[in-house]
C-alpha cells in the first residue's frame, strides 16, 4: 500500500491541519512506513470475530442532570484567545 501526496492533502484537509508540500512529503514517508508495519494485521482471519470497542464491560449509568459548577463564565472566557463581552470571537463566517 502506498499513501501518495494527494491522499496526504486529503487527510490534512479532513483533520484541519495545514500541510505544505515539504511537510506532506515527510508525512507521506512516515505514514507509509507506519502502514507497512500495520499491514501485518491482514495476516489474520477475523471474519467471525466481534469487534471489541470497550474493555469496560459495564452498562452506562445514569445520573441526575444537575448543574454543579458555580458561575464560572469569566474564568472560562479568560481562557479564550479572543472574546467580546460574553462571546467567543472567531473570524467572520457570514458576509
Amino acid at each position: 500500500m502506498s499513501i501518495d501526496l494527494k491522499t496526504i492533502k486529503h487527510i490534512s484537509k479532513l483533520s484541519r491541519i495545514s500541510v505544505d508540500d515539504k511537510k506532506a512529503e515527510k508525512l507521506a514517508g512516515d505514514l507509509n512506513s507506519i502502514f507497512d508495519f500495520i499491514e501485518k494485521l491482514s495476516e489474520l482471519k477475523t471474519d467471525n470475530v466481534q469487534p471489541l470497542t470497550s474493555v469496560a464491560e459495564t452498562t452506562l449509568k445514569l445520573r441526575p442532570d444537575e448543574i454543579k459548577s458555580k458561575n464560572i463564565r469569566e474564568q472560562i472566557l479568560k481562557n479564550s484567545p479572543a472574546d467580546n463581552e460574553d462571546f467567543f470571537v472567531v473570524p467572520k463566517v457570514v458576509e
Partner: protein
Amino acid sequence: MSDITRQSLNSLVKNIKEKKLSSYEITKSFVERSEKSKKLNAYITEDFSNALVKAKKFDDSPNFDLKLPGIPIAVKDLFCTNGIKTTAASKILNNFIPTYESTVTQNIWDEGGILLGKLNCDEFAMGSSNETSYFGNVQNPIDENLVPGGSSGGSAAAVSGQLTPVTIGTDTGGSIRQPASFTGTVGLKPTYGSCSRYGIVAFASSLDQAGPMAQNVEDCALLQEVISTYDPKDSTSIDFKRNQYRKELSKNIKGKKIGIPKEYRVDGMPKEIEELWQKGIQHIKNCGAEIVDISLPHTSYALPTYYIVAPAEASSNLARYDGVKYGFRSEGYNLIDMYEKTRSEGFGSEVQRRIMIGTYVLSSGYYDAYYLKAQKVRRLIKSDFDEAYKLVDAILTPSTPSSAFKIGEKKDDPISMYLNDIFTVPVNLAGLPAISIPAGHDAKGYPLGLQIIGKAFAEQEILDIAYAMEEKIEFKNKINDWWM
C-alpha cells in the same frame, strides 16, 4: 535534614504522624532539591511558594488521620488542576488554566497531599522518550545522555531524582511502566476503570488510565489506595470493591501460578533482558510460587493494533483544539484557515502524525479495513489473556525490550520508537492492570524492569507479587546527582 528527600513516602507519612517531621520541613526539602534540579527539566510549572504556604497551614491544624498528611506531590501535566496552568506539554495548551480539578488529583488533595508542581511529559502523552514535549526533553537522573522514557518521563525523573516522594502518571500504551523501567522506579497501570479519567487531558479514551509511580512497591500501593475511586463523572469508571492496597499488602505468594508467555521472547532481544527475566523467574520460585509456561499467540499483532486504535481515538479527542475557546490561536483569513493554521502551528510533529493516521483509518473507505479490523484483533488479544488466566494468576514479562536509550537516538524513526512499547501495549488493549518493578542493571549500569500483569481488578495480587519479588531483588538505584 538533608536525607528527607531520600525517604520513602510511607516513612515520611510515619514521621509526620509521629511529629518527627513537619509538612513544612518535608515540603521545603523537596522544593529546595527541585530548585537545584532544573537541569533535569522535569517540571513544566512549579507551584513551590503555594506548596510552602499550604504546608505551613497543614502544620497549624494537622489532620493525622489522612493517608497523605501534608505530603508534597508533583503530578504529570496531563491532569487538570483548578486555577493552575495545565499544558499536556503542548504549545496548543500553553496558556490553558482549567476551571476544574481532575478526580484523581482531587483525591490526593482530599487525603492531605500538597501540589508541588506540574511535571513534563510527551506532548499529549504521545511518545516514549519525553522528546516530543513543547517544553523540551527531560534528562534521566541515571545518566544525562539518556531519555527518561515516556510519556510520563518528567514524572519518572522526578521520582528517581527525588524531586517528589511519589507521583502520578498516565499510561495509554506503556507511559507509566516504560519510564519507570528506564529510571529504576516502580510504576503501576491500574485496570481500565479503576482510576477516574475525569479531568485528564484525553489521548485515547478506551486505553488511558492514571496510575501511581514511586520508589518502592509499598509507596505505590498507598498512592493507588488514594487515587482509585469510583467516579460518576467518568462514564467508564467501574464500581468494584477496592482493596486497602497498602494495608492489605502481603509478601505471601505461596502457591500462586505465574505465567511466562513464550511470545515475549522476541527476536533481537538483548541477552541481559533474557537473563533478567530468568532471574525474576527464580525469585518467583524462591517465593514459593509456581511457574507455568503459557502462550499469548496474538502478541505480535498488539503494536499494529495499537497504532490504529490509539491514533483513531486521538484524532477524535484532539478535534476540540480549534483555537476558539481556549489555548493557542493562529490568525487566518477565514474560520477554516484559522483552524488549519492553529492546529498546524499548535501541535508538534508526532501529534500531527498521529492525528493524520487516526483520521485516515477512520475515513470513508478505510474504516473497515483498518479501524474495524483493529477492533477485531483487539478482541483476539484480550481473549489470549482470558485463556491464559484460566491457567495462571498473573504473568511475568520484561517491561521493555532494552534499557533507556540515548537522547536523540530514536527521534527520527517512529517505528523503532514505537517498538519500545512491545511488552506494555497488549496490557492496555486488554484493559488489565500491570506493574513494572526495577529488577536489575544492564552492563552499562542502567536499570531494567520486570512487568507483572494481573487479571482485571487484581491490583492487590500483582502488588503482592511485586512486593515479594522486591524483597528478593534488593534493587539499588545508581544515582550520583550528576545534575547538581
